């Protein structure tokens, strides 16, 4: 049954200021358009075509709502509380520390300083210096120390001040963190969380703008997740702490000041699920972390031009949520991956391979992957802008794919 009505895309323009209201970036769920594609038929869809069933699949006692548009409904508009992303991380962390005395934090400047991004602010005063440990600048050994502590049953959270510094701890993360469960024949579990901000910031220079997802993705035995909104930051933080596997939580330097309203009640998200940001019919755009916002900005332009992109924030970088992605591919038959990782050997490259292998028959066009350039991030602002994917490039890629 087809219902034709004109959609109203009443959205506020994307502003690149430091404090963003992520709610305004989300397109309202009730909209649809009628357009005719090259084959001449009319595309319509019913509103609220949300994958709620997929989202509730694996949840048992958790609030399952992975759909970001939940904040739009007017009944819940006044419930919950508004906070910034780093505060959401802080809240998640504090709730877990309260709940389980084995949870501890270690990293540089996490204790008395309160965390270089204020994620651990006030925790040292509350829980003591041993539980929120200020380490010397020795990533290799304090990550190793966290892993050793995890072997005995503690649940440490190792904070890298910048993800790039964790390259120094690569040996510990790969050999001891990822592989110990396997090489000990299942005797030891490593319930560690390694987190930190990565990604391209505002002219931070090459060494401080690294995307480590691509380097860590092949390590067997670890899970990787990337948060992008305050809602999923808190949920993923809690899920990562509760997980028995080692989890690497990728945050982004530029997203710490995002503001959103999150529920008051406790919720934990699933580590292996993707988030349906904007359902659509024409093309599936897969993205994560900061690029989600570039994609949503491009989506506005695309909607005005008459396209209907389906945007999925994959969140789980290892393993990929191929179920959600697959359902989407089967619906739209076109895939665009937008990521901040490098072109060579990045998350997009693995995702392209995974989708091609599993859903090749459903694809009408080759998968297009927009990633950062394979260059060290330059300092100059204009050059730095050109290393990451910009909304204009996303729009033209979609137009090209949908011809």
């Amino acid at each position, binding site marked *: 049954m087809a219902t034709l009505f004109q959609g109203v895309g009443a959205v506020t323009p994307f502003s690149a200021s430091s404090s963003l209201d992520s709610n305004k970036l989300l397109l309202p769920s009730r909209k649809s358009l009628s357009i005719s594609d090259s084959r001449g038929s009319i595309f319509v869809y019913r509103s609220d075509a949300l994958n709620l069933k997929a989202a509730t699949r694996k949840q048992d006692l958790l609030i399952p709502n992975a759909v970001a548009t939940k904040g739009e409904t007017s009944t819940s508009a006044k419930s919950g509380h508004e906070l910034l992303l780093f505060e959401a991380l802080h809240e998640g962390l504090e709730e877990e520390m309260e709940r389980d005395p084995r949870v501890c934090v270690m990293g540089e400047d996490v204790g008395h300083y309160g965390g270089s991004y204020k994620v651990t602010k006030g925790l040292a005063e509350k829980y003591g210096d*041993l539980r929120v440990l200020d380490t010397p600048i020795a990533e290799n*050994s304090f990550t190793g*120390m966290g892993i*050793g502590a995890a072997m005995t*049953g503690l649940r440490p959270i190792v904070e890298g001040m910048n993800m790039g510094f964790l390259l120094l701890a690569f040996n*510990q993360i790969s*050999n001891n963190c990822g592989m110990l469960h396997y090489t*000990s*024949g299942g005797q030891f579990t490593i319930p560690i969380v390694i987190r930190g901000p990565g990604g391209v910031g505002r002219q931070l220079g090459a060494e401080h703008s690294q995307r480590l997802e691509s380097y860590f993705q092949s390590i067997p035995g670890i899970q990787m997740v990337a948060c992008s909104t305050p809602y999923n930051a808190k949920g993923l933080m809690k899920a990562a702490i509760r997980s*028995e596997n080692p989890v690497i939580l990728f945050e982004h330097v530029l997203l710490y000041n995002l503001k959103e309203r999150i529920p008051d009640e406790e919720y934990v998200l699933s580590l292996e699920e993707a988030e349906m940001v904007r359902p659509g019919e024409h093309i599936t755009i897969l993205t994560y972390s900061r690029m989600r916002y570039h994609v949503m900005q491009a989506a506005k332009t695309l909607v005005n031009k008459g396209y209907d992109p389906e945007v999925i924030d994959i969140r789980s970088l290892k393993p990929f949520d191929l179920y959600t992605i697959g359902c989407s591919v089967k619906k739209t038959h076109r895939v665009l991956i937008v990521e901040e990782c490098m072109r060579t050997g990045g998350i997009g490259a693995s995702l392209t391979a995974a989708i091609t292998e599993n859903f090749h028959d459903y694809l009408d066009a080759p998968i297009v992957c927009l990633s950062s350039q394979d260059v060290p991030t330059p300092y100059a602002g204009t050059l730095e802008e050109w290393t990451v994917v910009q909304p204009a490039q996303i729009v033209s890629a979609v137009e090209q794919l949908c011809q």
Partner: protein
Amino acid sequence: MALSRIASSSHASNLLKPLSTALSIRRLISSDSTVPLTIETSLPFISHKCDAPPRAVDTSASELFSFFRDMATMRRMEIAADSLYKAKLIRGFCHLYDGQEAVAIGMEAAITKKDAIITAYRDHCTFIGRGGTLLEVFGELMGRICGGSKGKGGSMHFYRKQTNFFGGHGIVGAQIPLGCGLAFAQRYSKEENVTFTLYGDGAANQGQLFEALNMAALWDLPAILVCENNHYGMGTAEWRAAKNPAYYKRGDYVPGLKVDGMDVLAVKQACKFAKENALKNGPLILEMDTYRYHGHSMSDPGSTYRTRDEISGVRQERDPIERVRKLLLAHDIASEKELKDIEKQVRKDVDDAIAKAKECPMPDPSELFTNVYVKGLGVESFGADRKEVRATLP
């Protein structure tokens, strides 16, 4: 020689032989006696920023007897592993510990199973010391499912969670920060236990050692770093790799002790001293002066960077098992024949374990995918051909 030093021990009166001649076997002290004996170590301890422990070690006849038996088991096990490797039943890397048994045994005698031990890849004997069985060792070395890590770890990955043995690590030096993490967890949970983190003279030049030492000293973690100095880091002699080969001094602000690692009683005394100290004052470095008869691993003949005379010289003068044998004979705790019988029994035990391990099956192909993650993720994983071996990670 050992006799003269023993005669100077405080229990000299016990050494007087009884007058009765009716018994055919004159046993002054029976081998299961727990009457305390005090024996002096053959070399003094050398200390750095701390007071050395006394040279007189408290032990007993039964303890000495158990030292002999356990060290003989370890020695026999390593020699058997050598033959199995040459018979190509053990593949890959095999790092043998023969010559260094006194360190493992002496350490065990001074501590409890609640204290944690973590070591590098020369871990077969440490695993046995922590309660591992010969079957688990040979099973793991040959890659069978009866092995300690179900055959998935290999020679360098022995672990035993229930007796706090944390492995078994292949990368040189990477276990040192892990060891500090174990000590951190002990301090966090306020347990009165310590962690012994073993590393070699080769690993003593790693940066992570000093990073971990700094942190352990900063937070007074009960970590004892034990350098098993066998004087060769793989194929390079210590004086060619380290500017300052006095490893017990390299902790600078951390106290250190140099111990004769071929004397099991000295090791026991040092570890006991270290445990008491670490619980009160924080980390400590023990340097065990020891020696390995084999090369670095089975692919290293061990004779290109040292002379055969050196190896046989150490074997004649400082062999740990011979030392204990002489002690047992001198104190009349056991006779030559009894010791030979023990060695025969040990040989038999090892052969039995090998035979049993050989019968054990190899792991099932489905085991390829178990224990990658803890919780089931429903993730698909493939073998190389992407068709035949294909499983959902359990």
